[in-house]
């Protein structure tokens, strides 16, 4: 198991920004002239020549992937994940450094690459398979399996332009799923298709990893990364920020995104999130004694207070509060439909709505709050995303002499009864 499948050594990638125009021809000729005259190659001078607008998309990245390892690659948009994948997939080459690979590698940066709309499903399976590196013989032997997995067997001889987008994606993924490479690189392909199909895709990738194959998985879904991967790499601004156990890296990544750690936030003037009917002025987290606070014991109540200004008369204010865990997964949501004044049209002015979250509801851990505002009929939506964070602290109330962690999102206090029978 200790055999190295992918070895990345000191890989960097330089991009040249800006548009290609008549300027570029002149610059190219100038560059050529400079090279012919054996002058210093100005192409590689780090960012000093601001006119040239050179940007390092990746800088000195080194890592190794062991055979059979399932590695997650995470980072914000523009951090350099895609560039790394493109280099690994040989779509573009590194400016510096080298990558060595052991085993047949297949990368899925997209499903259905090369699908031709005029061709039938059958013809596209062969074409797509060949693009991905399969021989006709291989495809023929797996054809039945592929079609069955995709679930579009009825339409296999129909041009794919008549397919629904779901069928299209299912067929495309089915081809990719039956490649059986030794190393699989997957990029966000799970973002397509319905929930059932996504689960099927994830399952297929899990099968691949269980079969002892190496998988490199890139996704923005931390839940998917955590459930699939053993370890992860965090890329930030082109640099390898961290590598290690998937749980630690995912937590660190979510920490990077954490904007607010205080227990209250105020908005003023044009910064106020809102629509034409009302605007949010502030949000506060309060403990059971109405003090501002952002850590609560799991057994205690706490409150979320929303202050807003109604801008037009007779506005019906609709609010929803979403609570997500530190993995970004939704834990629960609450609507203000339970407010006694929910139906009322509000006059212009300032208002304050308070929602109380029961104690003995959430488990311990970190949570993020997203507030969504709507006008009457739940229209004109505006989100106030991840506006505040809070932590639920463990208390011994339910634990007694139990020393382990509680699993799950919730820690409800449920009744247990025992009688002698």
């Amino acid at each position: 198991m200790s055999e190295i499948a992918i070895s990345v050594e000191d890989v960097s990638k330089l991009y040249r920004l800006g548009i290609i125009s008549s300027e570029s021809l002149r610059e190219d000729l100038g560059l050529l002239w400079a090279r012919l005259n054996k002058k210093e190659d100005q192409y590689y001078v780090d960012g000093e020549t601001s006119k040239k607008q050179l940007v390092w998309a990746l800088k000195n990245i080194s890592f190794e992937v062991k055979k059979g390892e399932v590695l997650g690659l995470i980072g914000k948009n523009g951090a350099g994940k895609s560039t790394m994948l493109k280099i690994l997939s040989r779509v573009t080459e590194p400016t510096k450094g080298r990558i060595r690979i052991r085993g047949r590698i297949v990368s899925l940066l997209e499903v259905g690459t090369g699908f031709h709309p005029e061709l039938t499903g059958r013809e596209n399976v062969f074409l797509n398979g060949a693009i991905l590196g399969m021989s006709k013989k291989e495809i023929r032997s797996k054809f039945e399996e592929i079609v069955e997995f995709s679930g579009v067997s009825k339409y296999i001889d129909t041009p794919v332009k008549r397919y629904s987008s779901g069928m299209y994606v299912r067929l495309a993924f089915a081809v990719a799923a039956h490649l059986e490479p030794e190393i699989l690189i997957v990029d966000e392909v799970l973002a397509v298709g319905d929930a059932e199909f996504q689960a099927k895709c994830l399952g297929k990738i899990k099968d691949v990893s269980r079969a002892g194959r190496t998988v490199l998985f890139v996704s923005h879904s931390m839940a998917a990364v955590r459930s699939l991967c053993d370890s992860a790499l965090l890329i930030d601004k082109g640099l390898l920020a961290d590598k290690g156990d998937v749980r630690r890296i995912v937590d660190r990544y979510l920490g990077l995104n954490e904007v607010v750690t205080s227990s209250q936030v105020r908005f003023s003037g044009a910064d106020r999130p809102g629509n034409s009917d009302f605007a949010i002025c502030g949000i506060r987290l309060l403990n059971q004694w109405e003090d501002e606070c952002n850590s609560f014991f799991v057994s205690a109540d706490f409150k979320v207070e929303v202050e807003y200004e109604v801008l037009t008369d007779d506005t019906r204010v609709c609010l929803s509060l979403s609570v997500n865990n530190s993995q970004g997964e939704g834990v629960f949501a609450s609507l203000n439909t339970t407010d006694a004044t929910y139906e009322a049209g509000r006059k212009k002015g300032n208002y304050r709505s308070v929602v109380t979250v029961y104690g003995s509801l959430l488990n311990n851990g970190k949570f993020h709050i997203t507030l969504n505002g709507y006008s009457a009929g739940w229209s004109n939506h505006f989100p106030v995303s991840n506006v505040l964070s809070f932590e639920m602290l463990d208390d011994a109330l339910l634990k007694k002499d139990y020393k382990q962690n509680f699993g799950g999102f919730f820690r409800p206090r449920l009744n247990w009864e025992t009688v002698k029978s």
Partner: protein
Amino acid sequence: MSKKHSEEGWDLVIEQKKRLVDLDFSAVWKYRDLVSLFVRRDFVAQYKQTLLGPLWHIVQPLFTTFLFTVIFGQIANIATDGSPRPLFYLSGLIVWSFFSGTVLSTSGTFVNNAAIFGKIYFPRLVSPISIVISNIIRFFIQFGLFLIVWTYYSWFTKEGANIHPNAGILLLPVVVLTVSLMGMGLGIIISSLTTKYRDLSMFTGFALQLLMYLSPVIYPSVLWGHYQWVMKYNPMSYMIETFRYAFLGTGSLHPEGILYSFVISLVLFLAGVILFNRVEKSFMDTV
């Protein structure tokens, strides 16, 4: 971008290519199934939902020949070396359109395939090679048409007496090979340059049209009198004239001209492949 590394058992090494020529034709051979599927796709996709289907390959040269016969033959009355006009035009046209079709379609390789090339790796040469094969097939379909027209004129018309097919026919494979290499070479050179300068793609169609008038498609090269040297430098002239000489017996055969064309086509092809290879590794960053 990659080469086989047997040392330490690595299967693939990705690093910046520094060598000027780093060709790996064995990789293309591995993807031969993809070549054949691309060829199939080109044919099948092009004529889906058309009534005539592949017959369009025949309709095009037939109509152009008819047009030329009326305009350049009947109206302008340009001599055709004594061979029947339609045969003269058709022979020139199918060889020329084989060349110009190859250049035009391969010249779009990078720009047209940007979406695929940006997402997946396969030897990029697979694309232009499959296009050339499609064009060769198209040429032979049109050649079939030519043979029908040629048989008709040879046996059923008085002008048949002027048609003298000869051993030059054995040079047909040479003509096909030379034109393929030349068309693909020029096409991928243009394709490589258009990744940076899109103007070239506009220019290509226009330049090919001009070049047709510098080739003996519509008139025999002797018609140019003392400007004939222009055609002498045009490697396509020899290809058209060889084809015409072989099947019609008009004009003359220039072995040194054929050799010249072949050398030019080889140079263009190699230059094209080298340039293509250099561009393929970085074009995703510029396209």
